[in-house]
């Protein structure tokens, strides 16, 4: 059998098999739950609305939470992405024309293979996994998000950092023509662009650390950091740098954008910690979107089992 593949289709444009299967599975679950199988299978356009239904999904992997997932609609219309504006509705409203194709990621620093990779080459061969993670924002609200992506550890192994590399630094794209929040304002009001984040190498290698490329089995929407973003569920949401264009392996601890903006409030680690408050508000509790009452915030956002040993012996009040 002759299988011909048009050369002008990038592999990133083809729905990964895993995404495809997940989608089928999701439609099945959703349609059973909603009893609208016929409607959904006839009208693929309804998918986003079916995804926004409140379906109780079963945990699939060892790291998945079985908590109720935040509706697709909420995840994609209420979030922070200051490059598109400081209002929670700005990212969805102002990112429609953001270009994610073509996309390259520059790998730099103490690494065996420094180069600028086309996204497809960078992720070639990786299997997309579902990860249903809690997401705790430093502003004391939280969500449960079904991500799709691959472990950051896999990528780092492929890039082969030098032994001297102790940290990995990430940068978001700098594109003021497409990102209104990056344009210099009359009296400022922005961060020092491009957005910069970093992880200790062992944190980056932790199996929880994910490079996400989708949510709810669909490609990541622009407002959520397309085409690829970091997800570190035991840390506050702002560590999850979006639309990554640069990965740099370094010896010294990088300075993240929020550390630079307000070092007393935002530290390098930014681990979720109910005992260490933000200067302006308590971090002891959080509002899970969709819930009326606040719930108590868990140490490391409930991922202590997977991550606590990385911080053994550290004073987490100092290393916030």
């Amino acid at each position, binding site marked *: 059998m002759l299988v011909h593949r048009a050369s002008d289709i990038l592999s990133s444009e083809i729905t990964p098999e895993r995404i495809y299967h997940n989608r089928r599975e999701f439609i099945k679950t959703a349609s059973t739950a909603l009893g609208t199988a016929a409607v959904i299978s006839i009208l693929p356009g309804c998918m986003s609305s079916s995804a926004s239904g409140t379906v109780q999904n079963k945990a699939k992997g060892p790291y998945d939470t079985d908590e109720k997932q935040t509706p697709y609609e*909420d995840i994609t219309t209420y979030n922070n992405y200051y490059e598109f504006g400081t209002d929670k509705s700005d990212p969805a409203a102002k990112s429609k024309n953001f270009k994610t194709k073509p996309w390259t990621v520059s790998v730099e620093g103490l690494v065996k293979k420094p180069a600028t990779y086309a996204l497809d080459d960078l992720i070639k061969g990786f299997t997309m996994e579902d990860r249903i993670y809690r997401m705790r924002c430093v502003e004391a609200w939280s969500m449960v998000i079904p991500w799709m992506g691959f472990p950051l550890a896999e990528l780092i192994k492929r890039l082969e950092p030098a032994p001297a590399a102790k940290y990995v630094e990430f940068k978001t794209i700098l594109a003021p023509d497409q990102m209104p929040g990056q344009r210099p304002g009359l009296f400022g009001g922005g961060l020092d662009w491009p957005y910069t984040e970093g992880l200790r190498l062992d944190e980056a290698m932790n199996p929880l650390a994910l490079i996400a490329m989708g949510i709810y089995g669909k490609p990541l929407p622009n407002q959520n950091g397309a085409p690829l973003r970091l997800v570190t569920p035991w840390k506050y949401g702002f560590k999850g740098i979006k639309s990554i264009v640069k990965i740099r392996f370094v010896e010294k601890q990088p300075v993240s954008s929020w550390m630079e*903006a307000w070092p007393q409030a935002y530290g390098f680690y930014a681990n979720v910690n109910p005992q260490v408050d933000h*200067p302006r508000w*308590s971090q*002891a509790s959080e509002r899970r979107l969709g819930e009326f009452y606040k719930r108590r915030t868990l140490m490391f956002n409930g991922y202590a089992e997977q991550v606590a040993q990385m911080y053994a012996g550290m004073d987490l009040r100092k290393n916030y």
Partner: protein
Amino acid sequence: MPKFNRWWILKSAVFLACLVPMVWLTWDTLTGNLSANPLEDIRDRTGIWTLRFLMLTLSITPLRRITGWPALIRFRRMLGLFAFFYAFLHFITYIWLDQFFALDAILEDITKRPFIIAGVTSFVLIIPLAMTSTRKWIGRLGGKRWQMLHRLIYLSAIAGVLHYFWRVKLDIRPPVAYGVLLAVLLAFRAFGRLNIFKPQVARVGSEKSALQ
């Protein structure tokens, strides 16, 4: 029917206009038009409208002098009471929706966090003003003392702007804009005391009396 004069109609119109933010918020809440975090929207919107009504209340005196329309004073009490009304709703959203009446958490906030301290201060300072807003109370306290007491609104507004400033994570432009507006409104009073605007008021007054 002396009751239904021009002022009655105007006052009713202003009263209804002051209720618009409340009706609008209720509508958005009931129709699911708020964001994914509706409780935060309710808290933020009642907060910002408190600040707006404080500014409107403080604008009356300068506006009277500038426009030469002293009758504007008739709306000041209503605007002030609406500032209190929105502040009260805002305070309730904090006590109820944010803290769910957890006294320990509220006490910690009120004693530890400048952001909350400023907000509570702003609210507490206008409680006596709302309570003594009637004519009866002006009589009871005496005009001069009543006026002294009601200057607490200056401090309430300053605390309110600080509260907003400390609420913002990064983009301080909106709270700074409110700060500038408040500075102008307060400066107007300070300069008024130095008799800079007095002659103008006197002129307007004399023109008026000349017309009569």
